[in-house]
């Protein structure tokens, strides 16, 4: 056979050769022999000749274009395929014996972290509980400081604390639950995604995807002629476009490189790029890219890309945790993420899921029993809100703002940085809930028939100024105006502690000093009069300085501040960490001074930390996407006041809770060891409450965006919100910062010896009582240094005191 054919081939080629030679010969002869006549055969040859040349040009052009496409495909597909938004994480929950922790908190944090409660704990991301004993299978995680593998943690509770902790049967001193992902810093197009490697995707999902979207995936070279023909047939039969013939590769090319434009040109480009992609990359690489690229819905400003994020978004689960029904739904949704959205169009989603399951059964990916079982399941989506959205806009805004001082926004949006923050999800949740519940209650009480009130709150740790929670609006999911950072509101009586701190620091005053609460009138330099009144419109005469503070008396505070000198008080504000320019007007003494809740927090932080001026801090560490630490932040801040002075001030702030405007807290928390201050601005436009225990400082603001007045004060409007937050965080009574000397004082504020008719016990600077205590026989009315010093001050007639009359 073979030998027989050979000569034929040889003949053929020789014939061809002869023909070619003849043509060339004819061509050469042409100018001479066939000059005058137009030979039709020759004309045809010329056409062919030109066609041939043109086609070479076309092929060359196509070649160049392909090279260009090829470069485009490769350059975009190699390396970083996506601009990855920075990922922001909450603080990890550290567990150790002795930690004060409620089982409710542990349960909630596990839930928000997508842990599933199971009866047998065998896979990471699950936990089980038997009374006080818990087993938590912690997932592997790259923390900011090191990578940690998955571990099975056992722990037990005793009286509200972690009692015993072990890992794999061995006692353990400290372990962390991986931090909750709390949002991203997105580029302008707001594309959000989580990357996943193909080997981490359940095989059933891959199988379902291929079954539904491109059955011949592993057989074609990027485009499938059969697929196109099938689609054409179906479309012609239906008279409209009902089926697409695109392969997965083409879909990826379309999403990845091209626009959504429907044109032949784009289609051709898509086909070529698909072929090129298949030429350079393996089926697995392309599939992995597809799974990460695919668009699966919209969540407000964010577009959800990739199955990893989608499974978290729709089901609050890892991809590995998806069951068959969820896998089928997710794959089905690719066809139309908004039409099959399980949140809003459950029926569509359900029927689409069932279609996918049918196809899977048909292709023997699943058994009939599995199909029936999965189709029998309800579509259970993650609760919209926290689990699905799980964003903390107000906090993320602050993160972004603090990072932008050190990093370019572009890098934050593109390079997949990992940002580890100080957010405490439990406290954040408590703060959000407290604000929402109380605003509703207050509006009902005030008879507002539509949403009128707004609120903001900041919670920090007292020692390190780590921001644990922040809410910028009653609409906690709202990415708009952040009142915690940007609302500049009059702080009212929250300014008072600075006045009293100035008094204590001057060395001329103790809490027992008598101050005058007579009506006060100060003439400004422009001739206008400042005549502040007390909230109850009464004069209270001569009172202990501590009572003036606890009861927030305006007249007494104004008089005291004028005596101290406005400049001194302004200086105190600055030392406390207030960064803005404070005009030296008398009215600042009573808080006619606008600040944001975050700025107020920074000021109160100095009281709460024992005298260290610190900026509220949200970032713990920043790493690259492959976990190289770029920056880690630690506690910092200069000492602005001595702990002893702050301890004395704190006594006054505690009296607010013992007997003053925050009295209600003493009953609720069964302790008076809470330091706090209420604030109400003129005409009740702003209600404030700032307070701290031994662990947390909370600042709450309540008001109206139109700056109108409302029927609430700091005590009736903001305090209940603070109370509710701290009821959920738990209150730890304050511990003293320094030792003070205590003495009984008489009605004139003089320290007296024990059993000598003292009426109140008050703290004094350590060592300052020596020689001052009055024995029982002494004349109370004339002795004692305090009144004297005040009198002297009067005669001296310094500073603003001249303006007083």
């Amino acid at each position: 056979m073979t030998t027989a054919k050979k000569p034929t081939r040889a003949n053929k080629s020789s014939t061809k050769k002869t023909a070619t030679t003849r043509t060339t010969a004819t061509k050469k002869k042409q100018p001479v022999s066939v000059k005058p006549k137009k030979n039709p055969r020759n004309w045809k040859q010329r056409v062919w000749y030109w066609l041939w040349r043109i086609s070479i040009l076309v092929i060359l052009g196509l070649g160049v274009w392909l090279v260009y496409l090829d470069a485009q495909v490769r350059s975009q597909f190699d390396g970083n395929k996506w601009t990855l938004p920075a990922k922001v994480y909450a603080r990890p929950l550290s567990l150790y014996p002795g930690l004060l922790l409620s089982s409710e908190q542990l349960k909630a944090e596990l839930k928000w972290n997508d842990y599933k409660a199971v009866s047998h704990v065998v896979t990471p991301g699950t936990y089980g509980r038997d009374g006080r004993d818990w087993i938590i299978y912690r997932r592997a995680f790259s923390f900011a400081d090191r990578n940690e593998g998955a571990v099975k943690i056992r722990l037990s509770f005793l009286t509200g604390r972690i009692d015993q902790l072990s890992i794999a049967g061995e006692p353990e001193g400290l372990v962390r639950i991986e931090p909750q992902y709390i949002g991203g810093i997105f580029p302008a197009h707001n594309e959000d995604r989580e990357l996943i490697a193909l080997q981490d995707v359940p095989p059933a999902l891959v199988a379902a995807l291929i079954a539904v979207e491109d059955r011949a995936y592993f057989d074609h070279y990027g485009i499938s002629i059969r697929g196109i023909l099938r689609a054409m047939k179906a479309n012609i039969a239906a008279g409209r476009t009902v089926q697409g013939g695109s392969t997965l590769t083409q879909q990826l090319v379309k999403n990845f490189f091209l626009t959504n434009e429907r044109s032949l040109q784009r289609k051709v480009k898509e086909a070529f790029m698909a072929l090129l992609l298949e030429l350079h990359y393996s089926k697995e690489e392309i599939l992995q890219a597809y799974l990460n690229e695919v668009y699966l819905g919209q969540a407000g400003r964010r577009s959800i890309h990739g199955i990893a994020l989608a499974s978290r978004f729709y089901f609050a689960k890892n991809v590995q945790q998806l069951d068959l029904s969820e896998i089928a739904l997710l794959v089905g949704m690719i066809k139309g993420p908004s039409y099959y959205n399980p949140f809003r169009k459950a029926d569509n989603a359900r029927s689409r899921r069932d279609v996918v399951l049918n196809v899977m059964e048909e292709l023997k990916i699943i058994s009939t029993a599995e199909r029936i079982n999965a189709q029998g399941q309800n579509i259970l989506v993650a609760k919209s809100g926290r689990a699905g959205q799980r964003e903390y806009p107000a906090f993320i805004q602050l993160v972004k703002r603090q990072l932008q001082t050190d990093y370019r926004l572009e890098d934050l949006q593109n390079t997949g940085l990992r940002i580890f923050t100080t957010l405490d999800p439990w406290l954040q949740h408590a703060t959000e809930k407290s604000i929402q519940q109380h605003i509703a209650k207050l509006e009902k009480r005030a008879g507002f028939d539509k949403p009128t009130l707004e609120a903001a709150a900041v919670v920090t740790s007292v020692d390190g100024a780590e921001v644990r929670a922040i809410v910028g609006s009653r609409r906690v999911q709202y990415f708009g105006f952040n009142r915690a950072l940007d609302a500049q509101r009059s702080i009212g009586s929250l300014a008072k502690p600075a006045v009293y701190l100035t008094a204590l620091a001057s060395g001329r005053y103790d809490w027992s000093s008598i101050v005058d609460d007579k009506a006060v009138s100060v003439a400004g330099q422009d001739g206008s009069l400042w005549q502040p009144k007390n909230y109850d419109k009464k004069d209270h005469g001569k009172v202990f300085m501590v009572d003036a503070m606890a009861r927030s008396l305006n007249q007494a505070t104004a008089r005291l501040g004028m005596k101290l000198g406005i400049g001194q008080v302004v200086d105190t504000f600055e030392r406390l960490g207030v960064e803005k320019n404070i005009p030296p007007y008398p009215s600042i003494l009573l808080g006619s001074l606008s600040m944001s809740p975050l700025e107020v927090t920074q000021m109160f932080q100095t009281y709460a930390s024992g005298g260290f001026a610190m900026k509220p801090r949200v970032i713990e560490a920043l790493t690259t996407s492959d976990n190289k630490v770029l920056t880690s932040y630690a506690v910092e801040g200069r000492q602005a006041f001595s702990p002893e002075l702050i301890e004395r001030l704190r006594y006054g702030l505690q009296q607010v809770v013992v007997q003053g405007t925050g009295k209600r807290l003493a009953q609720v928390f069964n302790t008076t060891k809470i330091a706090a201050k209420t604030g109400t601005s003129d005409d009740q436009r702003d209600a404030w409450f700032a307070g701290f225990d031994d662990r947390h400082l909370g600042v709450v603001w309540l008001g109206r965006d139109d700056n109108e007045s409302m029927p609430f004060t700091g005590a009736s409007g903001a305090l209940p919100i603070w109370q509710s937050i701290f009821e959920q965080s738990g209150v730890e009574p304050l511990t003293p910062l320094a030792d003070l000397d205590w003495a009984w004082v008489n009605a004139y504020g003089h320290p007296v010896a024990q059993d000598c008719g003292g009426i109140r016990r008050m703290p004094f600077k350590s060592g300052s009582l020596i020689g001052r205590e009055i024995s029982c026989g002494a004349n109370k009315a004339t002795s004692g240094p305090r009144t004297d010093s005040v009198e002297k001050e009067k005669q001296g007639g310094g500073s603003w005191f001249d303006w007083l009359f």
Partner: protein
Amino acid sequence: MVRLVVLVFFIGFLTACSGVPNRVNNDPRNQQSHEVKDIEGSEYVQQDDILRLDEGVHHPAVQILLTQAEDARQQGRYQQALSYLDRARQIQPRNSAIFYRQAWMNYQVGELQQAQQLLQRAQVFLRKSNASYDILQRRIKTLQNKIDAKDGY
């Protein structure tokens, strides 16, 4: 009557005996750090400087972090050592011994201002009731002198 009294006393005695034994209280707020392992012993040498971050006896969780910090320091991963120390601080936010170590580590890496601030805190939170008061006080002073010498504070 006598029987009743005896019975009451007997039951009382039993109750006292069967009471829940005092557990070791692990509340970090109640636990001090000891700068040296055997504070009562006479053998130890009172160093005015630490050699290792994990010296002494601390709350178990803090001890783990100090050990990790020391490992990181020895391997030259100073940033990591600092972040372990800051985690320890978050568990015991007013532990003078931890602040001292943070200051010491910052001094080692040349962050003098930060070291200075942390040392202030170590001083502020050092209580006379602390079993290691004297030694920690000396250590703070020594480090302060070093910072002053280097920075000309």
